[in-house]
């Protein structure tokens, strides 16, 4: 560094131009350069760059807003769907319950009707049986009477008046029936 100072001292003492002082040409060119830069930058070079940056910022802001809106819309739709799904579940449960109740009522009805039908059939059968039995008994009574008469005729070998012996036949059958 001391060399440098000596050199500086030597330079200034040797009568050459002071290195600190500005030179006219340099001043003019620096003002000219800076002036040209300011004019061209301000008029022509700076605004497009700044506009592009502002446009981009606007676009990003717009995109973010749109994304927020889309997200809110999606959220709303999701809520709606959830609500609809819950409603559908409630409806389905309701329908199922109703169906179950209807089926239960139907089953009870059918069962009651079937039981009633069965009872009717049973009564009818019993009635038919009873009539048939009476008919059979009457037929049998008649047949047995005839047979007994024939048998008696054959046994006593005598002609007996049917009408007269009817009382006898009846008492005979009563004894058999009892």
């Amino acid at each position, binding site marked *: 560094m001391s060399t440098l100072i000596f050199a500086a001292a030597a330079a200034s003492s040797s009568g050459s131009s002071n290195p600190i002082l500005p030179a006219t040409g340099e001043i003019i060119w*620096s003002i000219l350069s800076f002036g040209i830069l300011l004019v061209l930058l301000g008029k022509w070079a700076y605004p497009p760059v700044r506009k592009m940056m502002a446009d981009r910022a606007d676009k990003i802001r717009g995109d973010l807003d749109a994304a927020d809106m889309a997200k809110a819309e999606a959220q709303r739709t999701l809520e709606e769907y959830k609500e609809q799904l819950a409603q559908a579940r409630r409806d389905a449960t309701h329908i199922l319950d109703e169906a179950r109740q209807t089926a239960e009522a139907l089953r009870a009805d059918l069962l009651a009707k079937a039981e009633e039908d069965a009872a009717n059939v049973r009564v009818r059968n019993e009635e038919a049986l009873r009539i048939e039995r009476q008919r059979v008994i009457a037929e049998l009574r008649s047949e047995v009477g005839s047979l007994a008469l024939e048998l008696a005729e054959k046994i006593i070998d005598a002609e007996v008046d049917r009408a007269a012996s009817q009382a006898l036949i009846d008492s005979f059958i009563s004894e058999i029936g009892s």
Partner: protein
Amino acid sequence: MLLAGINFPPISDVLNWRSIVFGGTPFALNKVGLITLAATVITLVLFFFAGRQAKLVPSGVQNFVESMVDFIHNSIVVDVMGPEGVPWAPYLTGLFFFIFFCNIFEVIPFIQMPATARMSVPAPLALIVWITFIAVGVKSQGVGHYFKNAIVPPGVPGPLLLLLVPLEILSNFIVRPFALAVRLFGNLLAGHLLLLTFAVISEAMFVKSVGLVVLPLPFAMLTALTGYEIFVSALQAFIFTILSALYIAEAMKAAH
């Protein structure tokens, strides 16, 4: 012994450049003038490419320019001047880029000369800023109000004003432009001479085989200082720009 081998060039040889064209006229164009023109051309070309690409996701030149524009717009213009300072963004952006490129030629190989290490560049810039903030103050507050606000502190008793008014005049209208120019000039001149010193020492060590043992030391220092000077180039451009913004912002509003 070793120092005797170091051939340090006269300081005027590394600061005063011969004119290339228009020699002998006031328009003599030398290396410093060329660097200022280059700073203008580089800035405009960068902005041209950045504006022409206009990609949604910036990369390369567009990314660099946009991040710098964004930095100046947010950290200097809006932070210091507020929203009403936005019309000054192109002016301050131009100032920052111009000073930065004038500075950065300090470490560009084969050029290695910051234009701002010559008083011819910082002084006119400081003068332009000085004229700007006075013009802004006069335009926004009126001549009487502006100068009254600038040099008469409110709420100060009469006798003290005798002392404070000259101080305020000195501080606001003389020291400000002087300090702006000298800060930039001094930093870059010092950086330039430091780099030069270590480059000369490294060269001397390399040429004189006796110095080979300690060659890595000045060379390492040269490398480290080159990095540091890149930082200084950006920092000084930032300081000059933010102070200019501050002065203009102060002139726009009624002081105090």
